Structures are given as structure tokens and as C-alpha cells.
């Protein structure tokens, strides 16, 4: 049953991932019109779409006749062969080695990403221990560390680090903006969100994954830029602070800014666009999908049955 379920979810996820890959450009274009905080939610939804669709389709397929069978109700589904539902028949069947191997292969990207995230968490923890040795702890829990960086690090215990050179060379408003930006990351739990999104995005095709995660990172940064703008009551101070920090880090050599993300952030701060609200469209789309799922329950079940039969047998 487990390999059948995994392979079924993988097939649906692959289909959705392909469809999203083909419609990536208009999708990102539409998301660009939204306010950053709303865009973050939509982008997380987009990264979760293939896996979510797979699990939803599996639930629908199981719900049609497998669940009634499990709870002892009569199953009137005769399936593709007429002798019984092939999807239901998979339930008691023991999976072959090939099915197990195939299901392992299709889940490999998710396991690989999980391992990468675990490694990142270990490195972040180690960096925290190293930084604690050289940091001065501020009154609001901010660590002052050598250098010109400003970042929030680690999960589940995130710490905000502000570089001493940055504090020395930037004016007080800019430092306040940087600190508010990083503190917003900590309060929103952005590190956990990014880890979660990377795990969900591992089922996307590589180009789609890179584009979605890039857009998500930019949206997260812009959401925190907005908070920093509210703190200092002027978005241009935040824009100037971004450029000053990028220059500071550039002067120190080795690290500097990623131009694409910086462009988008500075431009958004200089000319905040009028943002469309997207939730009515989302509610409408979900209602249509739910209605279709109920109306096409039988067809979805048999499509699932045929697909699973094809893949597993």
C-alpha cells in the first residue's frame, strides 16, 4: 500500500510540477503585483502545490471506496476490470521490491533536501557557538559581532546579529532600520519558513524550484523591509541602509550583495506600488476546485486507479 500511495502522489506531484513549470512566468508576474506579506503566503502555497495536490488526490481516491471498505461498508466500485477496483485491490497486496525501489527513488529529492536542511541547522548552531564567543549581547537580545554583516541565524533558536562596523559606520536611523528588519525575521519565524519551503520545493523541477525560492526569499526580505520602513517612518532610509551595508561588505572583500534581490528591494522601497488583494481570487479558486472534486469524485477515483495500476503492477 505504501509504495502505491507514494508513487501515486509522486505522479500527481510531477504533473502539477510540470504544469507549474510551464506557467511559471505568468504566475510570478501575477504574484509580483501583491504586497510582500501576501506574496510570501502565495509563494509558500505555490511551493507546496505539487505535494499538496498529490496528497489531496490520494485522499479523494482513497475516500471513494477504500475507506468504505476499511470501515466495513459495501463497496460498489467494480473498477476498470469489472472484477473489482484495482486501486482497492492494491491495499492488501504486498508490494514488490521494484515498487519499493521506485518509491524510494521518487522520494530521494525530499530526503536529500531534509539532509541538507539538517546540515544547515548544524552549521548554524556551530556558527552561533563561535559567534557567542566574540559577541556582545545587547539589551534587546541582539548580538553585536565583529564585521559589517547583519543577519538572523539558526533554527529553532534564532539569534539576531548586527556587525560592529555597521553600527560604527551607519547613522542611528539606518542601524535602527537594519535591527528592525532582522528582528522582524526573528518574529515572523522566517528561518523556519525558508527551511519548510525548501523541503516542499524539492518536488518541483529544478528551474521552477530556483525561481520560486528566489522569489520567496525576495518577498520575505521585502516584507521585513516594510516593517523596517514603518519603524523609521521612511522607506528611503531603509533603501539607503541597504546600499550602505552592501558597500561596507563589498569594501571588506569576499562578500557583497546579490544584485537581483537588491534591485527589487531598493526599487520597491523607492516607489511602493499599489498592491492588489488576492484573497478573493484564492477563495474563488479553492471553491471551484472543491466543487470539481466533489462532482468528479468517481472519475478522479478511476483515473487514480488506472494510474496506480499502471505504475505499480
Amino acid at each position: 500500500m505504501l509504495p502505491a500511495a507514494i508513487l501515486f502522489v509522486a505522479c500527481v506531484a510531477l504533473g502539477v510540477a510540470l504544469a507549474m513549470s510551464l506557467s511559471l512566468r505568468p504566475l510570478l508576474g501575477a504574484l509580483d503585483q501583491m504586497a510582500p506579506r501576501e506574496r510570501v503566503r502565495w509563494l509558500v502555497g505555490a511551493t507546496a502545490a505539487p505535494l499538496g495536490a498529490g496528497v489531496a488526490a490520494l485522499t479523494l481516491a482513497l475516500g471513494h471506496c477504500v475507506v468504505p471498505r476499511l470501515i466495513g461498508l459495501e463497496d460498489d466500485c467494480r473498477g476498470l476490470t469489472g472484477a473489482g477496483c484495482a486501486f482497492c485491490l492494491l491495499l492488501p497486496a504486498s508490494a514488490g521490491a521494484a515498487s519499493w525501489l521506485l518509491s524510494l527513488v521518487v522520494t530521494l529529492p525530499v530526503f536529500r533536501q531534509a539532509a541538507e536542511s539538517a546540515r544547515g541547522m548544524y552549521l548554524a548552531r556551530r556558527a552561533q557557538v563561535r559567534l557567542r564567543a566574540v559577541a556582545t549581547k545587547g539589551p534587546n537580545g541582539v548580538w553585536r559581532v565583529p564585521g559589517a554583516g547583519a543577519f538572523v541565524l539558526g533554527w529553532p533558536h534564532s539569534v539576531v546579529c548586527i556587525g560592529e562596523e555597521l553600527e560604527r559606520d551607519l547613522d542611528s536611523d539606518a542601524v535602527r532600520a537594519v535591527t528592525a528588519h532582522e528582528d522582524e525575521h526573528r518574529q515572523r519565524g522566517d528561518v523556519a519558513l525558508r527551511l519548510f519551503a525548501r523541503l516542499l520545493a524539492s518536488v518541483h523541477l529544478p528551474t521552477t524550484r530556483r525561481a520560486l525560492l528566489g522569489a520567496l526569499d525576495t518577498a520575505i526580505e521585502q516584507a521585513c523591509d516594510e516593517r523596517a520602513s514603518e519603524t523609521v517612518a521612511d522607506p528611503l532610509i531603509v533603501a539607503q541602509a541597504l546600499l550602505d551595508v552592501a558597500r561596507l561588505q563589498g569594501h571588506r572583500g569576499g562578500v557583497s550583495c546579490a544584485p537581483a534581490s537588491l534591485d527589487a528591494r531598493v526599487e520597491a522601497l523607492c516607489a511602493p506600488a499599489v498592491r492588489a488583494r488576492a484573497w478573493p481570487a484564492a477563495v474563488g479558486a479553492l471553491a471551484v476546485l472543491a466543487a470539481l472534486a466533489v462532482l468528479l469524485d468517481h472519475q478522479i477515483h478511476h483515473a487514480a486507479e488506472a494510474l496506480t495500476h499502471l505504475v505499480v503492477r
Partner: protein
Amino acid sequence: MEIPLLGELEMAVLEHLWAHGTTDAKDVLRAIGEPRDITLSTIQSTLERLHRKRLLIRERQGHAYRYATAISRAEFRARAMAAAAGDLDGADAAGVMAAFVDLVARSDTRKLDQLAELVAAARTQRKPRR
């Protein structure tokens, strides 16, 4: 020499030695151990560990050792930050870090100048929002 990972007590001992120069275990106990309710043997083993990590040097005086730091505080901070930078790169790549400005090995001062002009133009066009 790479700076090893240090615990809180090890850092406190190092800070004490940087502040007070050469000292022995009993001095460290009075300054750091007693306020934290830590025994002499714990202090001695901490000093021993720091010596093994090559952060302290020591010389025997009678039955006891006297300890001094092997590197200055500034050198320690520089090396610890260099070691942390490697970890930070890995953490950034894995998404466990969010930097104010992305830590990517790429620099384009011309692009920064263009963006600075954009900020200046925006500043002249509109008053700050209050």
C-alpha cells in the same frame, strides 16, 4: 590555528585571563567559580582543556600551574569570525540564515551607484512618509 568551539565557562575563563594576565586556578575559582557555585576541580579541568586546545600556556610554580593566554583577544576574535564565516556560508546556502544583504561572493559597484541615484531621485521627488 583554527579556533575550537568553546563553552560558556571556557569563554568566561579566557575573558578573565585576558583581563587579569597570568593567574592560577585558585584565582580563577575566586573570580569565576564561586559566583557560579563551581568547584576547584571543574576550574582546573577547564584550564586543562583550554591548554590542550592551545589557547593557554602554562608553567609550573611549586605544586600548581600558572596560566596565561596563548593569543590576544583581538587575534582570537579575528580567527573565531573567520571560522564562523565558513559555517555562515553553509547555513546561508541551506536557508538557515537570512542576511540583511545577501552574502554572495559577487560585487558590482556600478549597480550600487545606479541604485543610489534612484534613492536620491526618490528623495527629491517626495517627502518622507510620516
